[in-house]
């Protein structure tokens, strides 16, 4: 009897778990896959796992191209541009500019202006919410409390994007805090790029040498 009860209970549990699994895919599975692939690309790229990142990036673009609606593709392109900026890689967002005339997305337009430094006051509200405080300050031209605003941005990727836009204005302390955070997250590529920038900015020769030594160790194969 006890045995039968146990078996019945086990089957019930399996049934309940099975209900949570989606056996069928919705119509816009391509969109979901594109989003998922891009998120993976973002993570791998910041961690410095270049081969995986490139594979996911191609997958995201490929999935986004499944549809004639180019908005997802435009989002992928502009988001890629932002990730490049986050690791201090200069990019002209050429791929996004190709698609831009074919897409009616004011928020993407505002985001592009934000990245390229030509944001207007009216476009601030179209940006993702985490950027509003920083963007208003940046737009006003005032640099007071800019470091606090940057360090308060979440998630880390957005913090890196805004830090790259205002990097010349940031203090060395802020830069060190950003490096510490990227190190905590395991974002190796981001850490290396920001450490390189700090080693150029810092007047302390010892600190510069230490940073360069760290970079050398991190970039060695063995």
């Amino acid at each position: 009897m006890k045995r039968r009860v146990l078996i019945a209970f086990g089957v019930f549990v399996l049934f309940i778990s099975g209900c949570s699994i989606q056996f069928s895919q919705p119509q816009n599975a391509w969109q979901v896959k594109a989003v998922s692939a891009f998120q993976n690309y973002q993570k791998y790229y910041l961690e410095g796992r270049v081969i995986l990142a490139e594979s996911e990036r191609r997958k995201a673009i490929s999935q986004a191209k499944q549809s004639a609606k180019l908005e997802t593709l435009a989002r992928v392109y502009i988001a890629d541009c932002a990730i490049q900026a986050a690791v201090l890689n200069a990019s002209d967002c050429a791929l996004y500019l190709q698609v831009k005339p074919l897409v009616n997305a004011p928020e993407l337009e505002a985001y592009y202006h934000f990245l390229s430094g030509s944001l207007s006051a009216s476009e601030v509200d179209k940006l993702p919410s985490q950027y509003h405080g920083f963007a208003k300050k940046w737009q006003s031209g005032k640099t007071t409390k800019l470091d606090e605003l940057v360090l308060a941005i979440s998630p880390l990727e957005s913090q890196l994007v805004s830090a790259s836009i205002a990097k010349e204005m940031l203090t060395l302390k802020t830069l060190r805090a950003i490096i510490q955070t990227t190190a905590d997250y395991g974002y190796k590529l981001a850490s290396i790029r920001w450490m390189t920038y700090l080693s150029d900015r810092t007047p302390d020769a010892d600190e510069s040498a230490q940073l360069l030594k760290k970079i050398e160790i991190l970039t060695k194969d063995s």
Partner: protein
Amino acid sequence: MSYFRLKLAVGFFMLTLGLVTLGLTGYLLYQKGVFDQKYHFQFTTPSAQSFKVGMPLLLSGFEVGYIDDIHLTETGLVNLRFYVNETNRKWITENSRLILKKPLIGSPYIEILSDRSSPLLADGSDVEMTVSDDINDIIIKLEPTVNQLIAIVEDFSLITEQVSNPEGALFQTLGHLEVIIRDLKESPSFVSSLTGNPEDGQTLSDTLNTTQASIKELQKTILGVSGLVENLNAAIVVPSKDIMTQVSTILTDVTLKLNTLESTVQALGGTDQDILILKQQLLKSVEKTNQLIDKIDYMMQDENSNRLELP
């Protein structure tokens, strides 16, 4: 039927059977020429190597006789006996000769050279036998020609040597001629006074210039030919068989290797399509696996967002 009659019938049958069998056998043997009279002749050779009992003798391609005995004589020579039948007796005359032909390709055979005008050879007589060897014949025929060629080249070599010798008669004569020409050129008036025509001197001078150039050219040519003849003597008249053999061996080896290479290339070419098909199948498998992974991925996700949030 009575027993006696039975015995009679059987006996009669057996007799008839025997007679018929005998008759047929006899007829066949007769047709084969077994009962024909045979005429035997013989010939002697130093060696029995190319001969065997039953070997035919040919006349214009037809078998007219056969060797039926081979034995060694007391003197160490080999005596061979052959026979011809009545029909072919006429081919063996007093002037008939036998030739053992050993062709380069094929087995040896005996050919009869018959002279019908001479009287028939007596039974049991000897016939003259000659051994003919194709290779030796060729060598024998060529040898005098080759010897002549060698002699000609040697003579030619000698002549050119003497002609091209700077201290030889020809070069000395040419040298004297050159001196005369130079002297005449230097005094054209002498010629004019001889001929009475003032222009003759200049004409002669021009002609002599041309002649002088021709003589120099001739000297160069003779020396050139002399060198050529020496090379001819050393390199062509006495060819190196070893080099030719080596070249032949190398070429044969190269040909074999090229044949092997050709078959390998053909085999590789044949696998091109197979590799392409395999590649396509692999790509399909990878694509299907990726699709499966995507589906599993999708199923395992807690939230499926269809909107990419900007970083």
